[in-house]
């Protein structure tokens, strides 16, 4: 099982620049952007930045939203092009899926470690010398290393498994079904938001208590759902 799956993992890692380095570049670009914005604000308001400005940075969840776009593309490319290559070279669908998922986990882990390293640098340098907050933010656990890793890992993995699910559904069932799946996901998302808003009175304290782990828990559920969806579709996908 491992031998055959490892082949697709090797295929996934054939271009390490894209699957390992680019997510880190994205994180780096986010940090740079935060520093530049802080400098611009500092020039206008003076250094050090005021507490209210710093609180505004800390409430930002830009880091979380910077990653999924590219990583979803990684997932889609793996589910479509790598799939065609793996089958051409003699893989089963099952082993392709397992090897690719292992690759996704590796990418997410590397990205999570990168985020932790950047967090360390951010704190070590007094927030990049200018009071810029990129990773020491509420959405990533306010400097908690485990939560930072957990959130970035989960967000990255959700993006890739969701991309893979859509890519595989497209391969298996075509554009119409993929569009319907997209619509269904959006509807489900809004239903979930409506339920959460409606029950915020009871959910709010729970989320506050869990902090960033609440996001990790939700992400873990999404990973299971999207990974299962991509596996099921992969079994019906053809070249």
């Amino acid at each position, binding site marked *: 099982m491992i031998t055959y799956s490892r082949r697709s993992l090797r295929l996934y890692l054939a*271009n390490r620049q894209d699957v390992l380095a680019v997510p880190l570049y994205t994180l780096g670009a986010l940090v740079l952007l935060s520093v530049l914005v802080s400098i611009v604000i500092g020039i206008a308001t003076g250094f050090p930045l005021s507490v209210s400005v710093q609180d505004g940075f800390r409430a930002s969840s830009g880091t979380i939203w910077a990653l999924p776009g590219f990583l979803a593309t990684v997932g889609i490319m793996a589910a479509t092009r790598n799939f065609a290559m793996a*089958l051409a*070279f003699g*893989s089963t669908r099952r082993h392709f899926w397992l090897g690719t998922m292992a690759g996704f986990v590796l990418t997410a882990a590397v990205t999570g470690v990168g985020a932790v390293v950047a967090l360390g640098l951010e704190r070590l340098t007094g927030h990049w010398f200018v009071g810029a907050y990129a990773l020491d933010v509420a959405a990533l656990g306010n400097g908690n290393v485990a939560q930072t890793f957990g959130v970035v890992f989960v967000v990255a993995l959700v993006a890739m498994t969701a991309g893979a699910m859509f890519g595989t559904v497209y391969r298996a069932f075509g554009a119409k079904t993929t569009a319907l799946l997209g619509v269904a996901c959006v509807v489900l998302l809004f239903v979930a938001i409506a339920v959460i808003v409606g029950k915020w009175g009871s959910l709010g304290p729970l989320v506050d208590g869990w902090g960033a782990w609440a996001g990790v828990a939700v992400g873990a559920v999404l990973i299971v759902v999207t990974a299962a969806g991509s596996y099921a579709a992969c079994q*019906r996908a053809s*070249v």
Partner: protein
Amino acid sequence: MTTPTAALPAGAALPGITLRGLTKNYGATEVLTDVTATLTPGRIYGLLGANGTGKTTLLACIAGHTFRTGGEILIDGQDPREHAPTLARLCFVHEDQAYNDAFSVADILAVMPAFHPDWDPDTATRLVRRFRIPRRTRSRKLSRGQRSALAITLALASGAAYTFLDEPYLGLDATARGIFYDELLAAYAASHEQAASGASAPRTFVMSTHLIDEAAELIEEVLVLEGGRIVLQADVDDARRTAFLARGFEADVLALAVGREVLSTRRLGGILTATIRGDLSVDDRRCATEARVSIEPTTLQELVAAIGQHGESDQPAPHYATESSPVQ
């Protein structure tokens, strides 16, 4: 070379590829119909037929790239569906193979040994050099000919026990096609040498092709697909002998064709050229000579074209470049 599947006892002769009643539908369209054939190992097969007759679909079904609608496929006695040890012995790079856009040729070549333990790096290096494939170029930037050359390189160097080549020469010039033919024969010969030493079973190559006469010298056995069915499976020489060309005045040719299946006809003025299935007795040949009907063997290309034309054609005669019209 790849080791035989574990499903068979050691030393047992490999049964090869067995197809029984294979069908494939795309919606209401039946692409393959009741395909039944056996491909014994260690041969070069030509999968021939007109466009749209199901050649690529048949290869895709065998390799598990698409799902059959019905029937049975066995590779060395094993249903290949999701059977890793069996599929690992296959290599089928499609004519329009999709590669990851971010991968360079070097990336693709680097990953092949992981999939094919019998990958031959020397063959790969030699083919890349002979075809002048740019190693650093990303797959999406390759020209049609370079894509074909890459597919040939991957297939031949893979060492896969069952290697499928889907229109492998598209976009290749005559020189590059010559390289391909040389290398295919070299890979074939090498696998037989290894098999003779008992190291492994010889490789089997299945090649779909339109350049039939050009590839005829390579192919040992042909499978001709027409309308999703295998209408002929035979050794190349036997296949050629299944039909003949008769050329002469229309009435004389048609008289000769009585009781035989006329695969195709072409007319130039009063002269008719017919491809007729069957054999001729000595008496038939004497009658033909007396009637001034010339009898010639068909080439493989002519035979396949005739089968595809269902007895009538608007195409120029094989030996005349001229107008034509149906006989009946």
